[in-house]
């Protein structure tokens, strides 16, 4: 349940961006929450809704990208999306690979009401 702390960081960022861009109402937040970011999208949505209630952000829409986990094989450099947590390279069966996507936890954009 660290989603509330993360939601709070997102809401603070949105408020700061709104302030810096003329103070318009925040309509929509773009987020990127990777498959293995450790953050549950439903709990995050719940946290953002709860924190925005009674503020100028109330009712803000969320657009959440959910990047899949991607690995790059240490031997042949093939990039692949592992099935579950079986991470052998599908091309050469090598067992070691590095994670290149799926851990994202980003704010991508903030949409404001036009002044």
């Amino acid at each position, binding site marked *: 349940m660290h989603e509330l702390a993360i939601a709070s960081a997102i809401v603070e960022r949105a408020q700061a961006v709104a302030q810096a861009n003329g103070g318009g109402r925040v309509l929509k937040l773009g987020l990127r929450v990777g498959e293995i970011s450790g953050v549950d999208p439903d709990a995050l949505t719940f946290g953002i809704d709860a924190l925005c209630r009674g503020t100028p952000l109330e009712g803000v829409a969320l657009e959440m990208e959910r990047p899949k986990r991607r690995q790059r094989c240490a031997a042949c450099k093939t990039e692949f999306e592992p099935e579950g947590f079986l*991470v052998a390279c599908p091309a050469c069966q090598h067992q070691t690979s590095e994670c290149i996507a799926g851990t994202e936890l980003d704010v991508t954009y903030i949409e404001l009401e036009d002044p």
Partner: protein
Amino acid sequence: MRVAVEEKVLSENDKLAMRLRARFRAHRVFCINLISSPGSGKTALLERTLAALPAQARVAVLTGDIQTENDARRLARAGFPVKQITTGGTCHLDAAMVEKALADWQLADLDVLFIENVGNLVCPTSYDLGEHAKIVVFSVTEGEDKPLKYPSIFAIAELCVVNKVDLLPYVPFDLARAIANVRQVHPGMEVIETSCTQLQGLDAWLAWIERRRQRALTEPEGGEPLS
């Protein structure tokens, strides 16, 4: 009007963590972050670790819990500097808590800093504390499928300590399958089996720390966060 932001949600934490990492590097302090479920034996492992060290060892411990100073009291018996971080409800440590806890310690006096995170296999995974390595502790009373149920921490930790192995005769825990599950999530992951009551595996654990510390000192850019 759409304003492009493109930044990490935890960028504030990551900035503080990078600052801590730079301080650890400047003072040649090796820092490890112990993560596990509640009750898997992080404090017991640290008690045994501290007890095994010579009195002049330059080590210290930060220990996190939601409430109580109990762990700090247990660990302070060894005579090394120990500080409790009580989060008051937060389920993980973050870099700001670590920075604040270190404020009145001289890093120049330390070689190793142990951070015992709040007992939780999920949330501490997301927070970089500037450490060189995250270590996951996994006990044989927990069920051998923990790595499959909570894969993220097993995927990013450098070492898995399987603790309480003295209880293996009494619990339905298949050690070989558990280790296979760890390596399914994290191929090639190092595993050390320990018992803190029967003093098994502690030499291997201490040797791992020293080996990893030497590597951190010779490759000072190592231990970067995963993402």
